[in-house]
């Protein structure tokens, strides 16, 4: 009874081992080829459960997802013979797994190397046809589309499909960057100078306008003032003339007498002779008393 049980268990184990050796799963993320003693037997597996011949068939699995390849930044010459440093990345995936296995013997590193060479060649050609301006600001998609078309022809020989080539960075080499910075600096200086002198211009305009306004204001005021004074003088003259012309001889007397009083003040020294008009009574007076 015990040996029968052992037999059962043994049989079960053998069956399980055989079963496990003859099924395999294909993951959603994988592409799988089935080898029969080194030969590719089948490569078009859908994800799920599949069968194989134990020990005769071997399963090789590859990543079926989109893979990225971050290419090393490299120097390219543009159409106007300027150097640019370009950093790009490539999205690719295994298209024909059998082809891929044959060409790369399943080595992803190898595939990456070949891919980056293909892309580098393509980029070199594309950049050589364009100026920096076109490369930096132009239609990257169009450039990449042309590049990808050629690259894919080569890549398909390796069972690889290039999905996208994206240019990340287009930088100028450091020595060129320096001169770009110098140019930017000069440009800023130009702007700064322009702004400052515009400021000075404006300021000068405002000042001179203010000065002009002041001068005009004062001149106008003086004109008005002279006008007023003249008016006043004229009125006064009229008044004087009206009044004094009523008796010209009396005016002469009156005015003269006023003038005498105004002219001779304390500081003045009068030299008088006693026989003068005013003092002419001295002698007759003394004659009277005598």
């Amino acid at each position: 009874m015990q040996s029968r049980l052992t037999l059962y268990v043994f049989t079960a184990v053998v069956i399980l081992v055989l079963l496990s050796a003859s099924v395999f799963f294909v993951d959603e993320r994988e592409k799988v080829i089935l080898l029969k003693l080194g030969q590719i037997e089948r490569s078009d597996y859908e994800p799920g459960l599949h069968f194989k011949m134990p020990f005769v068939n071997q399963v090789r699995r590859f990543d079926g997802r989109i893979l990225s390849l971050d290419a090393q930044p490299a120097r390219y010459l543009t159409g106007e013979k300027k150097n640019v440093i370009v950093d790009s990345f490539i999205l690719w995936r295994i298209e024909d797994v059998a082809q891929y296995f044959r060409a790369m013997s399943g080595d992803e590193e190898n595939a990456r190397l070949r891919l980056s060479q293909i892309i580098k060649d393509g980029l070199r050609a594309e950049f050589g046809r364009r100026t920096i301006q076109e490369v930096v600001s132009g239609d990257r998609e169009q450039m990449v589309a042309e590049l990808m078309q050629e690259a894919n022809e080569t890549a398909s020989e390796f069972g690889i499909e290039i999905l996208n080539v994206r240019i990340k960075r287009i930088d100028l080499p450091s020595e060129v960057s320096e001169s770009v910075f110098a140019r930017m600096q000069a440009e800023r200086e130009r702007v700064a100078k322009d702004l400052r002198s515009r400021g000075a211009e404006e300021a000068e305009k405002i000042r001179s306008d203010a000065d002009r306004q002041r001068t005009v204001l004062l001149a106008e005021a003086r004109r008005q003032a002279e006008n007023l004074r003249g008016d006043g003088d004229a009125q006064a003259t009229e008044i004087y003339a009206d009044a004094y012309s009523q008796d010209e001889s009396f005016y002469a007397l009156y005015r003269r007498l006023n003038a005498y009083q105004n002219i001779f003040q304390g500081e003045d020294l009068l030299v008088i002779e006693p026989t003068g008009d005013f003092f002419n009574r001295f002698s007759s007076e003394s004659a009277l008393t005598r």
Partner: protein
Amino acid sequence: MAWNEPGNGDKDPWGKRGGNNEGPPDLDEVIRNFQQKLGGVFGGKRNGNAPNPADSNGGGSLGVGLIVAILFVVWLLSGIYIVEPAERGVVLRFGQYHTTAMPGPHWHFPYPIDHVEVINVENIRTVEIGYRSSGARPEGSILSEALMLTNDENIVDLKIAGQYRVKDAAQYLFNVRTPDSILRQMMESAVREVVGQSNMDFVLTEGRSEVATRTEQILQEMLDDHGTGLSVTSVSMQDVQPPEQVQAAFADVVKAREDEVRQKNEAEAYANDIIPRARGQAFRIIQEAEAYKSQVVAKANGDTSRFLQVMTEYDKAPLITEERLYLDAMESVYSRTNKVMVDVDSNGNNVLYLPLDRMGKRSPNPLQTNNSPARIDLDSINYPSGQTNNASTDARSRGGR
């Protein structure tokens, strides 16, 4: 692989479901129990020292059946799993996509039939270009990422951050090997594409948010094109600066802009200072003229009024008034001034010298001078005869001199 080896195959499901249903003490007991049974099975074959041979001999096939049944149940129970609210469970059956499980408790066929990958779809992940807010050197600018060429071949230093989350767990799992790092590269490429098509001034000033928006668009398009299952929730510009090397020059432009305004303001201040003053001055000039005019007219009126009144009286008695006026005036003149009376021979040719300067200085006060007439040494005075002849005419002609 493992299930055909009883020793390991048994333990594996045990370990998996340990935390799910039963507490550790029960588990231990079951294991011990199971090992006893197992010991019985193999003990018979190998003649090992089983703990309880009687039991194994007696329980035979019944024991094996029980063990198998328990193992089966345990295996089934190991398929229970819970998806958290922020997560989705992607169920793979024999490696093939089966379903996506929403949050809650679920059951799947246990290993090796089904396999569940749990993905957090709510978690917002961040990607930073041009800087790192965490890590070895936080906040530091990464120049190789941050410096970008613009359309006008200038260089800007730009820091931008994006936030994203998993939109489709299955796509996220199956389509791309390293979705997060690809997103990073796509974003870098998108930003540079946008910046490369813009002018520096635009990027530095009003275009900041537009750069972010367009980056987001391009990035999302790329992500969708390649079925990454990722969704960009936001892209925000953290900082845009001119590169360090030229920042001084840029700052100078800002200063220059300020200087421009300052100069204008100073000039305005000057204008504001002098124009109202000039207006005031002008007003004063006019007012003074007005005053002069009024004054002159008033004076004329006053003078003539006085004159006319005196004239009216003069007309009544001209001779006596004339004499009176004459005497009044002479009196007033002579009483206020220094006087030297010289009695000269009208025929003499003597020249009279008067020390005019000394006499003028002697007394500044005219009133005092009136009281103390100048004493002049007459011996030293030479009197010129020519002048006296003129002076001897009448007082009216003297006033006109």
